């Protein structure tokens, strides 16, 4: 999960979500970083609209709370 959170922090700070930045965040948090996962994450996020994903999440819990 920490890899994805790292991406979310970078998204908020406005920094580029690249391998160096993700790795830096994770290392600062004491994570033993796996290079291949960082690569995969960065590649996978290339075509993803992060803001939209976050907004979707904001709308989602409403349904959950209904029950």
């Amino acid at each position, binding site marked *: 999960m920490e890899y994805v959170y790292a991406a979310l922090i970078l998204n908020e700070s406005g920094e580029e979500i690249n391998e160096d930045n993700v790795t830096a965040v994770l290392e600062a948090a004491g994570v033993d970083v796996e290079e291949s996962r960082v690569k995969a*994450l960065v*590649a996978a996020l290339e075509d*993803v609209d992060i803001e939209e994903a976050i907004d979707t999440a904001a709308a989602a819990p409403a349904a959950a709370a209904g029950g």
Partner: protein
Amino acid sequence: MSAESESVRKTENLPQWKEEEVDELVDFVESYNSVGVVSVTGIPSRQLQAMRRDLHGSAALRMSRNTLMTRALEEVDSGFEELVEHISGQVAFVGTNDNPFALFKKLEASKTPAPINAGEVAPNDVVIPEGDTGVDPGPFVGELQQVGASARIMDGSIKVTEDSTVLEAGEEVSAQLANVLNELGIEPKEVGLDLRSVYSEGTLFDPEDLDIDVEEYEADLKAGVAAATNLSVNAVYPTSRTAGQLLSKGAMEAKSVGLQAAIEDEELMPDLVRKADSQLRALAALIDDEEALPEELRG
């Protein structure tokens, strides 16, 4: 035919008596806030007496010859003459100091079911309901079918297989149908004092006017409460009924602001953590490459 009418017939060649009767009718009309004309058609006199007793204290009935009732209404004038057009058939005056709407409700409530006889006109559709008639197999099944009911023999008795309208309102009851209904114990008529019109403190009311829909008033009442609640909350004018809602609204607004601004407040933290978690999952859901995800987010 009632006892009063009988006596009227015997004395109809006595103009002096007629005068006195009209005077009494005038007194009756003038002594009530609301006076109506009710039809008493088809009410057996014993039942009529029972109704009279039921109404005692809230309304009074007065019967007479139609010509004399008409004369009395014309003599009183001042609006009551509008009732004259309803004087036809077997009718009576009903007088009350109650609310005419309340009178109508009372009269409707006192109506009872009654059998219908051959030759009578059906006041409403006559329906033979689906079900077991309890009648043993025999010629009765044919009679049922002849009057238009869908009937057959099943499990040792005669059954009506579906609700069957055997006569429509306004049609005349045949002898055969009367027999069938009687055999089944179906009483299709609503018998009672049928209010034709009421003149009340300056206004003539028809039954349609008086037939109030209580549910509609209840709905209006609720809409009124909702309107007041909305106005109170939206205009932020707290009342003892709405102050709790206003507090709740304020608390929700604060929470909403706190969550959107991610304010580091102890109370907000659990929700902020959940928000972050659901954002994480939403983002993970858009990632195709499982290599990029930890196990718990795959799939």
